[in-house]
C-alpha cells in the first residue's frame, strides 16, 4: 500500500472502531465512578473528578472499586455467571450430538435435497421466539422444569441446532471428499471414516460452532426472562436487568461492569475464530 492509501485506511477504520466500541469504552469509565461524581451533571462524564468537578492526574484516587465489589459480593452476579456457563456448556454438548451427524449427512450423503433442507433449516429461524415461548412455557411447567436451569438447557438447542447444522454443513463441504474416499477404499466403514478422518480435520470448524452456539445462549433473553423467576437460577442476560434495575433505581456503575466482563472474553474468542466462522457460514449457504 502507498502512504496515501494507508492514511485513508486509518481515516476510515479508526472512526468506525471508535463509534462501535464507544458504549463499552464509556462503560469502562463509568464502572469505576463514585456516586457523587456520577450524579453531578456538571462533572465531565469522561474522567474521574473531585467533589468540585476538577480532574487530577492521579485520577485513580478519585475512582472507586466499590461498585465492582458490590456486583460480586452483594448481588447474585457470580451465580449468574456460573449458571450461564453451565447452561452454555450443556447446550453446546446437546447441540453437537444432534448437529454433527445432521450437518455431515446434509453435506455429504443427502445429495440434491440436502440443499433444500439447508433452506428449510433457515426457515426455523424465522419463527419468532415471542411466538414459541407461549406453548413452551406451558411445556416447561408440565415437565416441572419451571424455575430450573434445565428448562433453558431443554429449550436453547431449538435455536442452536439449526444454526450449528447450517455452519457444520458448510465446514464439511470444504473438506476434500478424497480424504474420506481413501479411508473407505482401505476398508473403513462410513461412520469410522467420519470419526477418524473427517472429525479431526474439522476440529477448527467444530470449535467455531462451540463458540458461536455458546454465545447464542449467553445472548438469549426472552426464555431466560420468562421461564425463571428466582434470582439464584438466572443467567447473566436475565439476572442483570432484573436485579440491577429496580424500578427507577439503576446501579449504573455495576451495570456497566457486568456488561463488560462477559463481553471481553467473548470478543477475544470471536476474533480468534472469525475467519473460520466466515468460511463455514458462507460455505453452508452456497456450494
Amino acid at each position, binding site marked *: *500500500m502507498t502512504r496515501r492509501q494507508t492514511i485513508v485506511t486509518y481515516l476510515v477504520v479508526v472512526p468506525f472502531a471508535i463509534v*462501535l466500541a464507544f458504549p*463499552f469504552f464509556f462503560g469502562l469509565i463509568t464502572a469505576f465512578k463514585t456516586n457523587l461524581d456520577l450524579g453531578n451533571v456538571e462533572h465531565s462524564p469522561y474522567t474521574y473528578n473531585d467533589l468540585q468537578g476538577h480532574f487530577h492526574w492521579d485520577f485513580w484516587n478519585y475512582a472507586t472499586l466499590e461498585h465492582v465489589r458490590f456486583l460480586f459480593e452483594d448481588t447474585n452476579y457470580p451465580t449468574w455467571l456460573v449458571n450461564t456457563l453451565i447452561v452454555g456448556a450443556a447446550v453446546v454438548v446437546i447441540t453437537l450430538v444432534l448437529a454433527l451427524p445432521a450437518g455431515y449427512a446434509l453435506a455429504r450423503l443427502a445429495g440434491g435435497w440436502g440443499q433444500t433442507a439447508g433452506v428449510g433449516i433457515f426457515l426455523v429461524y*424465522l419463527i419468532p421466539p415471542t*411466538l414459541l415461548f407461549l*406453548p413452551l412455557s406451558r411445556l416447561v411447567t408440565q415437565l416441572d422444569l419451571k424455575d430450573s436451569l434445565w428448562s433453558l438447557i431443554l429449550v436453547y438447542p431449538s435455536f442452536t441446532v439449526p444454526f450449528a447444522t447450517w455452519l457444520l454443513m458448510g465446514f464439511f463441504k470444504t473438506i476434500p471428499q478424497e480424504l474420506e474416499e481413501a479411508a473407505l477404499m482401505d476398508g473403513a466403514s462410513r461412520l469410522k471414516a467420519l470419526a477418524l478422518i473427517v472429525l479431526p480435520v474439522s476440529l477448527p470448524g467444530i470449535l467455531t460452532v462451540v463458540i458461536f452456539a455458546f454465545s447464542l445462549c449467553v445472548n438469549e433473553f426472552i426464555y431466560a426472562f420468562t421461564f425463571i423467576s428466582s434470582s439464584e437460577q438466572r443467567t*447473566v442476560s436475565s439476572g442483570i436487568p432484573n436485579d440491577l434495575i429496580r424500578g427507577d433505581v439503576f446501579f449504573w456503575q455495576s451495570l456497566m461492569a457486568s*456488561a463488560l466482563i462477559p463481553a471481553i472474553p467473548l470478543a477475544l*474468542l470471536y476474533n480468534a475464530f472469525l475467519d473460520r466462522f*466466515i468460511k463455514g457460514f458462507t460455505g453452508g449457504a452456497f456450494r
Partner: protein
Amino acid sequence: MEAQAARLKPPRRRWRHAFESRRVLAPVLIAPAVIFMALVVGVPFVWAIYLSFTDAVGGSLTGHWVGFDNFVNAWGDDNFRRALRNTLIFTLASQALVVVGAAVLSAFLVRDFRGKWIIRFLVVLPWAAPVVLSTINWLWLLDSLYSVVNWTLARLHLDESLVWLLGALHIEDDAQVPLQWLGRPNLALVAITLVHAWRILPFAVVIFIAGRASIPNEVEDASKIDGATGVKKLWYVDLPLQLPIALVAVLFGIVFTAVDFAVVYILTRGGPFNSTQVLPTWAYAIGIDSGSLGEGAAISLFLFPLLVVVTVAMLFFARRAQVS
C-alpha cells in the same frame, strides 16, 4: 452358545452393511436433529397457530375457536398498526445503514495495516457482547439526565444545530436541549434504529469480508488492467460480485432485527405511550401482560409469512446471482 452367536451374526452384518448405504445412513444421521426440532419447535409452533384462533387467556393454553377474530381485533388496534410500522421502519432503516457502513468498512478492513488486530477486536465488540447488556450500555449513553451523548454534543456546540436539524426534517418539531433521546416518540424511533444498526453492523462487515475473500484474484488483476479503480471499481466490479453474500448478510440482519425483543424492551418498553412498540413487544404486552394469549399469538404470527417470503426470495436471488 456358539450356535446362537452364529445365528445372530448375519443380521448384524446386514445391519452394518445398511449403514454403508447413503439412503439409510443419511436419514439415520439426520433423524435425531429433526425429531428434536419437531418436538421443541414444530409442536409449539403448531400449537401457537392453533392458539391464535382461540380465545385462550392466562395460563390455560386452550380456548374456544373464534376463527379470525384475534387477527381482526389486532389489526383494528392503532397500537398494533404502529407496532407493525415500527418493525418495518427499524428493520429497513437499520439495514440500509448497515449495508452502506459494511460496504465501506469491509473494503478497508481487508487491507493490511498495523494494528489491524485491535481494530477488528473493537469492531466485533457489539456483536460479541450479549445484546441485553450492550443495550443497557446504550440506555446509559442516552439517559434523560446524564446522557454522555448530549454532554458531548453540548461541549462541541452541536446540540442546538441538531435540535434545529430535527425540526427542519420534521422528526421532532419542538425538541429542546438536552435531547430526550428515549422520551420523545420520533426521537426514540431514531435512537432505536441507530442501536439496531450499531449491533448488526459488525456481523454484516464480517460477512462482507467473506464476500470479498471469495472474489478470485484474477478479477482484481483484470480490473487493474482495464483501469477500474476507486469508486468505479467498487460499483462495477466489487459490489456485483459480492451481491450473493451481501444478500445473505442483509437477510440475517432483517431477521435479527424484525424478531428482536430485547432492544426495544430494554430501551423504552415500547413507550412513550406505545409509540415505539414493535410486533414482538406488542405481542408480549397483549399475550402476557394483559393475558390475552390468543391475540398475543396472532400478533406474533403476523410477521411470519412476510419473513418467509423475504427469505425465500433472497435465497433464490442469491443463488441465481452466484450462478451467473
